[in-house]
């Protein structure tokens, strides 16, 4: 059985934060094409605030809780509640667990995605971060069904997230600021789809780096 230790998992959240910080300008640039060009600013602000509060002895659940709370309560806008509920759900599902296995991860991600959908009311096809997060977990699931390998499923999840991100290019935005452009929103990626792809990638690779098996 493959798993990672919750108490070793702060690095996962740390790497998520680093990925966002490193891509701050790129995210704003993507948002600039059809949004208002502040996605990198918004994301960087919230994730960096959380970074200062995460300590070395924190578990994955602790770190996810801190990030989730900062986003949810202190950032505002839409990104705060959306990504906030995403990470807070991850905390809630895992808070009492020592080991996090593939089925637990799958359940956690599905519930986290459900909470984002519940919060933002966006569906697949609306050209939002849902278009990355939804295929990411679908890919994970189908890989697990096929090969039952946590690591393989995580890699598949990254691939599916990227496909999902790229699929937003041909979509008409129906939610958020870009919706103002209608048909003119076709041809460029959605900024939230890009940031959530970075998040899926950072989570998956970090888990692989601390994966154990019995």
């Amino acid at each position: 059985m493959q798993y990672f230790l919750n108490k070793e998992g702060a690095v996962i959240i740390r790497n998520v934060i680093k990925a966002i910080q490193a891509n701050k300008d790129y995210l704003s640039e993507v948002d600039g094409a059809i949004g208002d060009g502040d996605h990198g600013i918004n994301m960087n602000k919230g994730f960096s605030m959380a970074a200062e509060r995460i300590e070395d002895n924190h578990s994955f659940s602790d770190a996810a809780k801190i990030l989730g709370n900062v986003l949810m309560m202190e950032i505002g806008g839409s990104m705060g509640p959306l990504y906030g509920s995403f990470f807070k759900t991850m905390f809630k599902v895992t808070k009492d667990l020592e080991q996090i296995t593939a089925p637990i991860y799958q359940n956690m991600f599905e519930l986290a995605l459900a909470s984002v959908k519940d919060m933002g009311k966006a569906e697949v096809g609306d050209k939002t971060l849902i278009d990355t997060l939804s295929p990411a977990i679908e890919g994970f699931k189908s890989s697990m069904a096929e090969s039952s390998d946590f690591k393989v499923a995580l890699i598949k999840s990254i691939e599916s997230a990227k496909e999902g991100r790229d699929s937003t290019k041909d979509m008409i935005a129906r939610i958020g600021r870009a919706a103002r452009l209608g048909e003119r929103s076709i041809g460029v990626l959605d900024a939230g789809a890009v940031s959530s792809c970075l998040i899926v990638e950072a989570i998956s690779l970090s888990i692989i780096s601390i994966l154990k098996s019995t």
Partner: protein
Amino acid sequence: MQRIVNNPDDLVNEMVEGFKLAHPDIIASTPNPRVLKYKNAPVAGKVGIVTGGGSGHKPAFIGYVGENMVDAVAVGEIFSSPTAISFYNAIECADAGKGVAVLYGNYSGDNMNVRMAKEEADDNGILVKTVVANDDVASAPASEPQKRRGVAGEILMWKVGGAKAAMGGDLDEVIAAAQKAIDNTRSVGVGLGPCTIPAVGKPNFQIQPGTMELGIGHHGEPGIKVVDLKTADKMAEMTLDLLLPDLPFKEMDDVVVLISGLGSTPVSELYVFNRKVNEILTSKKIGIHRSYVGNYFTSLDMVGLTLTLMKVDSELKELIDYKTNTVALKQF
């Protein structure tokens, strides 16, 4: 970008600071720098009124804090919903033990953040009920009111809700009055030029000179259609053609008229527009109970206006006419 700012990231904090300094007779600060309150809030024995939203709509939202209107307000970044914590802190500031009515506009960020603030208030034993303004007829068909955005009509909702609370209404009565206010209110915007978020530095949409966008939203959300720029009179006709059938407003109805500039349109032009609105309403035998014309709810430096009509019965008239003392709206 010809703007009067320091670091654009500090704009909201500095604006709030400058606002507090200018109006100590009405406004008090709170421990949360993104929450301002009426200096006498919580007002003993009164239901609290809270609102909030993204910045860039000055005098909304903070200009409507004061006696008999809004007790506390949550302030967001430019065009971005305040945090859940700010909404919650505003609720705390407004609560005098009789519950708090959160009266806000229908935007996804605000919906999410208010929902979380309400959960927090529930957990802390503060009774909160909400009304969400959806007066913008251009943002969705009449059959989908839950999709419609809140725009300048929010001011009339705060006015009515605030007056009802001041007159001693309990939470349910205040909520019912505010809901009645917004249910009887319809707005539509006309955009003639875009706006620029200072941190971004350039307009993130365009309106071609010689054209105008009918039904534009308060952040530049797309309208119903882009048409050739019309005369003021024709604009009045077109906007009323959208508003009147929607409620509908009918012969012998009495209405409150609210015409707000979007930021860069000279107020003299709002009066030219008001002249024709008045003429058309009068010709349709719709009575004008009261008119507000000015920059009441803006969108940074956007060019254009919003027209809002509220159908008023004797209860709403009394609440609209009730005295108030805020920075942006004063009535004796």
